[in-house]
């Protein structure tokens, strides 16, 4: 905060003092302050940004004060963007500029932050029909950055249209639209914040469009191309003056929430989107601990952690020719494109004969010793790609099958590969162990002997409890059918309690898997970043 401290002296000025703290008389409360040339008043809506965040946050200043140690703090009640609470929206499709006021009790309602993280004012109009809310005119609505008419209760995770009497201890009238002269004050301020907000908010609004990986859908439609180009432009035009109004997120909320997402595949495409990718690599949903808890599903972070590091590394590696093998393989790949096409028909022909007993093939291969398990592949590879990979690496024709990963979030892809002969299999394994086969995104392929579980009888499945059928004889047929078919459990049965216990266990296990994957990802990132540095030396 050092550099800000110096800037503070010139850019900062307190406004009216409101009073002193009740408990600690050395704490001074203020009504307003001027920071970086902008006047902020109590109950203004502001944009808030901490370095390392993906997006600005919107909040309302409800307390402004200075501590005895001369730290300037503000208490902010947050507005949620729809995307942050998308799990609780259900079928709701909020308007593109709608936000939700936080209410209730719990984390995420409000925070105390350093005043220096305020970056600008925000024009928010309340369109609620509540009688305590003065209605805004059409012109004001047009000028507004965001509107809100609903609140999100952070304690119950419910969206409500009714406003309680107080939110975070502040009377709710302060959250509604203010009197007319205060409204007019807000709009001119937007102009003065152009320069400040340019850099961050247009970057963040483009980010908004491209980055979010909705847990529900992962569609990569034609819009992807335009979004990627848009983000290219965004990163190139960092210093330019773009008018603030253009920068607002354009309606990307079409009916299916299909936001183009950065999947691993997009990372492999050589677009110059490094700038915000570096932001990406820092941002897992857990990177907001200071501000508010984003209620995000865990799975959305799975494919985003591959930052620019591997891609840059690989591009660098491409250009230099220190590793001849790389160049050769590159050329092979470009001619390999042609090879791929001709190989497919053969592969299909083969499948006609041997398609059915894949499991038997695996068993036989294991017995003969030609089964190899490849680990640390990209989980989005297809079986055919694995076959091609092995062909290029070892010049061997093999049969491969990707094992679909059941635990989402794992970024290790596994595949079973059946070689033609035991010798070939062993040679491949020893080569992979001795040297390193490096994939395009920095993965090193490992191999081990493939083992397949012997097909045995299904043992007892934990969680399937059976009681004697004797008693059921008395029950009517319908009841019997009802119990033995699939159903949603009702809360008045023992079964329900047990089911809840299972759900708790499921959530627990999800949590520990997630933690493990995160730790693993961090370790790999660490290692991979060293890869690049070594190369430069």
């Amino acid at each position, binding site marked *: 905060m050092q550099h800000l401290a110096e800037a503070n002296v010139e850019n900062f000025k307190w406004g009216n003092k409101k009073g002193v703290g009740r408990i600690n008389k050395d704490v001074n409360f203020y009504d307003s302050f001027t920071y970086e040339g902008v006047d902020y008043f109590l109950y203004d809506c502001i944009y808030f940004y901490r370095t390392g965040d993906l997006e600005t946050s919107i909040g309302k200043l409800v307390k402004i004060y200075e501590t005895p140690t001369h730290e300037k703090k503000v208490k902010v009640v947050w507005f949620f963007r729809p995307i942050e609470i998308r799990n609780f929206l259900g079928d709701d499709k909020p308007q593109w500029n709608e936000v939700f006021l936080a209410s209730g009790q719990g984390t995420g309602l409000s925070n105390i932050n350093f005043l220096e993280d305020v970056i600008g004012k925000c024009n928010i109009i309340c369109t609620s029909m509540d009688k305590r809310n003065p209605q805004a005119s059409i012109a004001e609505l047009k000028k507004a950055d965001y509107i809100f008419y609903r609140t999100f209760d952070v304690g119950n995770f419910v969206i409500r249209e009714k406003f309680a009497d107080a939110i975070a201890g502040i009377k709710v009238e302060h959250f509604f639209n203010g009197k007319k002269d205060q409204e007019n004050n807000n709009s001119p301020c937007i102009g003065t914040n152009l320069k400040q907000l340019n850099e961050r908010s247009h970057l963040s609004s483009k980010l908004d469009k491209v980055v979010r990986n909705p847990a*529900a*859908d*992962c569609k*990569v439609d034609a819009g992807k191309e335009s979004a990627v180009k848009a983000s290219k432009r965004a990163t190139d035009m960092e210093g330019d003056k773009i008018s603030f109004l253009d920068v607002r997120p354009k309606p990307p909320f079409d009916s*299916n929430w299909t936001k183009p997402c950065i999947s691993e*595949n997009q990372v492999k*495409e050589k677009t110059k989107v490094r700038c915000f990718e570096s932001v990406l690599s820092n941002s897992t949903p857990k990177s907001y601990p200071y501000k508010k808890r984003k209620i995000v599903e865990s*799975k959305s972070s799975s494919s985003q952690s591959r930052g620019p590091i591997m891609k840059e590394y690989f591009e660098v590696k491409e250009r230099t020719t220190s590793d001849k*093998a790389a160049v050769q*393989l590159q050329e092979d790949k470009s001619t390999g494109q042609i090879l791929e096409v001709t190989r497919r028909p053969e592969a299909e022909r083969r499948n006609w004969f041997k398609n059915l007993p894949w*499991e038997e093939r*695996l068993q036989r291969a294991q017995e003969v010793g030609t089964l190899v398990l490849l680990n640390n592949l*990209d989980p*989005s590879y*297809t079986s*055919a790609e694995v076959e*091609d*990979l092995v062909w*290029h*690496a070892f010049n061997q024709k093999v049969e491969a099958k990707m*094992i679909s990963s*059941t635990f989402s979030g794992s970024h*290790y892809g596994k595949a079973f590969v059946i070689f033609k002969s035991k010798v070939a299999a062993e040679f491949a394994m020893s080569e992979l162990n001795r*040297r*390193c086969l*490096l*994939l*395009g995104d920095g993965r*090193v392929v*490992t191999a081990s002997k493939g*083992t*397949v*579980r012997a097909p045995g009888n*299904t*043992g007892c*499945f*934990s*969680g399937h*409890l059976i*009681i004697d059928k004797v*008693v059921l004889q008395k029950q009517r047929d319908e009841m019997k059918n009802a119990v033995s*078919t*699939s159903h*949603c*459990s009702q809360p008045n049965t*023992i079964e329900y309690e*047990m*089911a*809840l216990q*299972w*759900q708790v*266990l*499921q959530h627990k*296990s999800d949590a520990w*898997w997630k933690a493990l994957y995160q730790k*693993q990802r961090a370790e790999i990132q660490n*290692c991979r970043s060293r*890869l690049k540095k*070594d*190369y430069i030396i």
Partner: protein
Amino acid sequence: MGSPAEEDYASFEERVGRTVYFDNLSPQVTESVLRTALDQYATVKNVKFIPNYTEPRNSPQCALVELDSLKKVKEIILVTAQHPFMMTGMPRPVRACPAEVEMFDDHPVKPGRKISCCWLDPRDPDFQIAKELKHITRRHASEAAFIHKHQMEEEKNLSDQQSLILKGNYKKFKMINSIMADGTARRLARRYHLRVADD
């Protein structure tokens, strides 16, 4: 490489969007069970079980179910999340989440994607790092296996606990039932001059 491939991929992704991934299914659940179960909510187009090659045989099964519309997918996922839904394997509820591309092992190649690889010689400066990466990979695999084992143990514990509870309840129930059945309750009631309702 060209538009047929892209179209393929686009239609595949559309299918993925319409598919729900079910987890924690009992090994006794078959395709017909799944179909009848989900027919209450939506029309099922396709059911595919994910074969289990490396896990021990007691593991829960997973399946990919293709439905006819996106909306139904969301509905089913909401329902499963909010109420415990059982499919033959009682009382362990199934879990549902939207399917992802990686879960399909027969998906078409994403058009425009290039895979490249290179061999690293021991003389290469990155070789050491690559070796380290390999070690890390191996370690991660064993860590994952360990957690998996731990998870199975926890599940077994819970299951044993619950079966004890169930047995206790069942014994009580049987006893009450038998008393009612063979008239003991009625005789006692007459003795104590209490009224017993006929059930």
